[in-house]
């Protein structure tokens, strides 16, 4: 909630700030339009906003993980780290009271606590020393070393002078001291606002892990091998899907028999999400490469078939008529009119199919795989290696984005006439 509020605040604040600084600096065509609200073409993405948006995400991420990449003034309050101490008051069954001090060393996970020497003190209640990890909580058996006379019961009645009953809690500066129903004390150091690394590691931890894995690999395979396997599956599955789907789409666009025959199949398979096929494909083809490629093939097949079909149906009849009147044969019309005319649609389909395949391969690898981007994050999540999970998600996103960019570029180069008919 706090994060969302902060995010909204930065959104609004940077809007006013940027608008104030860059006041009508540009004079391109769109900025000269007086009617912009409702004119979609006048809304070009504000690049400054994009940059600020990405920076904001990193800033929030860094701030709430106590990252060393940003100055510590920007950090959200961190968890309590250090030595906390509080007094407790114990009472024996005969009513006599005694105080003792508990010293708790709170460290980050992985750091070795340095336990101070503490004198036991006098009275029956003895001073205690204990250690607890940040963001954790733990029992503190203060009575363990107390010298309780034979036949007497000891109960803790107060912490730092504040009365405490079983089930209750006392809040101190550095955390919460609670008492279990059975009367044992537990201590929960203040967590602050930062995220624990096992929930959300800091950006530099993710980057460091990325370097590690890029150098040493993960689970016996190099990083590029994991990503390469995923990409390889996508490319092979997509190629097979396109190889069969495009001719199928053409046939459906050109022949009533093909259209009638395959329409029910295509229309039925289209709404079935490829993810729903994973179990069946695993049953039939196992968890190896074949199964995954079959899955991606199926994911791409229908999309490509439908794209090719609509590419054929989308040809303007006057173009076909013109070609006939110019003496073209059926084969020539196919080659010189129908295929080029359908290419823009096919490229759009290919972009969609690549996106779906990339999503599907990651999901399939989550279920079962020996190598792959999805397998990497799945295995890491089982070991709570959140930094690897986040690194994997970022890599998957970057690669997916890269594929889309590549397809767009190919589209611009290969079918420049798109949308110009």
């Amino acid at each position, binding site marked *: 909630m706090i994060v969302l509020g902060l995010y909204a605040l930065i959104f609004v604040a940077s809007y006013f700030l940027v608008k104030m600084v860059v006041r009508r600096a540009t004079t391109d065509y769109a900025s000269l339009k007086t009617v912009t609200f409702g004119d979609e073409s006048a809304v070009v993405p504000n690049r400054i906003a994009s940059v600020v948006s990405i920076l904001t995400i990193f800033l929030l991420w860094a701030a709430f993980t106590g990252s060393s990449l940003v100055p510590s003034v920007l950090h959200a309050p961190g968890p309590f780290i250090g030595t906390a101490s509080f007094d407790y008051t114990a009472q024996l069954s005969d009513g006599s009271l005694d105080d003792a001090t508990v010293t708790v060393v709170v460290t980050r996970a992985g750091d070795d606590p340095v336990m101070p020497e503490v004198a036991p003190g006098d009275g029956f209640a003895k001073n205690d020393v204990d250690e607890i990890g940040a963001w954790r909580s733990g029992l503190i058996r203060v009575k363990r070393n107390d010298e309780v006379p034979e036949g007497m019961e000891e109960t803790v009645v107060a912490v730092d002078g504040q009365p405490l009953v079983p089930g209750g809690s006392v809040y101190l500066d550095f955390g919460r001291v609670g008492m279990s129903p059975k009367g044992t004390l537990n201590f929960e150091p203040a967590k602050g606002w930062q995220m624990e690394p096992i929930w959300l590691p800091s950006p530099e931890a993710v980057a460091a892990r990325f370097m590690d894995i890029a150098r040493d690999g993960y689970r016996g395979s190099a990083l590029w091998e994991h990503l390469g396997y995923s990409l390889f599956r996508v490319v092979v599955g997509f190629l097979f899907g396109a190889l069969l789907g495009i001719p199928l789409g053409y046939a459906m666009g050109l022949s009533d028999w093909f259209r009638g025959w395959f329409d029910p199949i295509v229309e039925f398979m289209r709404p079935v999400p490829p993810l729903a096929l994973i179990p069946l494909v695993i049953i039939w083809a196992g968890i190896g490469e074949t199964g995954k490629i079959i899955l991606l093939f199926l994911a791409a097949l229908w999309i490509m078939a439908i794209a090719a079909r609509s590419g054929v149906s989308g040809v303007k009849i006057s173009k076909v008529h*013109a*070609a006939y*009147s110019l003496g073209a044969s059926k084969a020539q019309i196919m080659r010189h*009119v129908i295929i*080029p005319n359908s290419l823009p649609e096919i490229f759009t389909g290919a972009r969609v199919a690549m996106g779906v395949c990339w999503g599907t391969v990651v999901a399939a690898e989550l279920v079962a795989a020996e190598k792959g981007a999805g397998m990497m994050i799945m295995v890491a999540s089982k070991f709570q290696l959140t930094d690897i999970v986040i690194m994997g998600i970022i890599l998957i996103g970057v690669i997916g984005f890269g594929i889309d960019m590549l397809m767009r570029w190919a589209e611009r180069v290969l*079918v420049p006439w798109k949308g110009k008919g």
Partner: protein
Amino acid sequence: MAGLTIENLSMRFELPNGSSVQALQDVSLDLAQGELLSVLGPSGCGKTTLLNIVAGFLAPTEGRITLNGHRVSGPDAERGMVFQQGALFEWMNVRENVSFGPRMAGKRERDYGANVDHLLDVVGLQDFKEKSVYELSGGMQQRVALARCLANDPDVILMDEPLGALDALTREKMQSLVLKLWKETGKTIILITHSVEEALLLGERLLVMAPRPGRIHREYRLPFAEMGVETDLRQVKKHPEFAQRREEILSMIWDMEEEIMGRTEVAS
């Protein structure tokens, strides 16, 4: 025999709801080689249908068409077509569009190249031959369409409102161009238009069609096309007979349109 003969052509469209439309009824026409015919008529009188049948895209329900002594049964390179717009291949540049016909016929660049370049010169697009067609203006695109049709050397050229999408000025220039090409090449041309002026200017013969059922209402033989070849089209329009014919045909079409409107009013 040379020329185009249309005999007792009828076309009936069966509609999905069971009714039918008589788009053409008993249309007969003889066109000699090299004649320029313009066709005029209210919207929906079957002009496009007639042209599509001559081009071979539609089979008539009755009647027959013969060209140079053989019967027309489908599209063929002997009958070229110029569409209103959007029939160019935008994946080819201007020159590839114009040379489409010869290339499909399997001719070599050295056989058709000179002719294609000549035609590009004639339509004034020599400087644009490497451009993509979507980079051209509407008027330029129609010139490409004309050149493409001519490059294929058809016997008959069919045009369905080829200048309908152009502005008045461009249109006038294109009208001169059509006349010039007609005179130079000696092609038989059928040109459909919505503009009475254009029909008068570009019709050695002018056919006025009437709707429901689509039929030939009247035919004229006009001197203006021949005049237009030699003089400026604006001079032709000043001719007293031109104005008189225009008024006559305009009121004729007005009456037809009025009749249709009246009929729909009664029906509703």
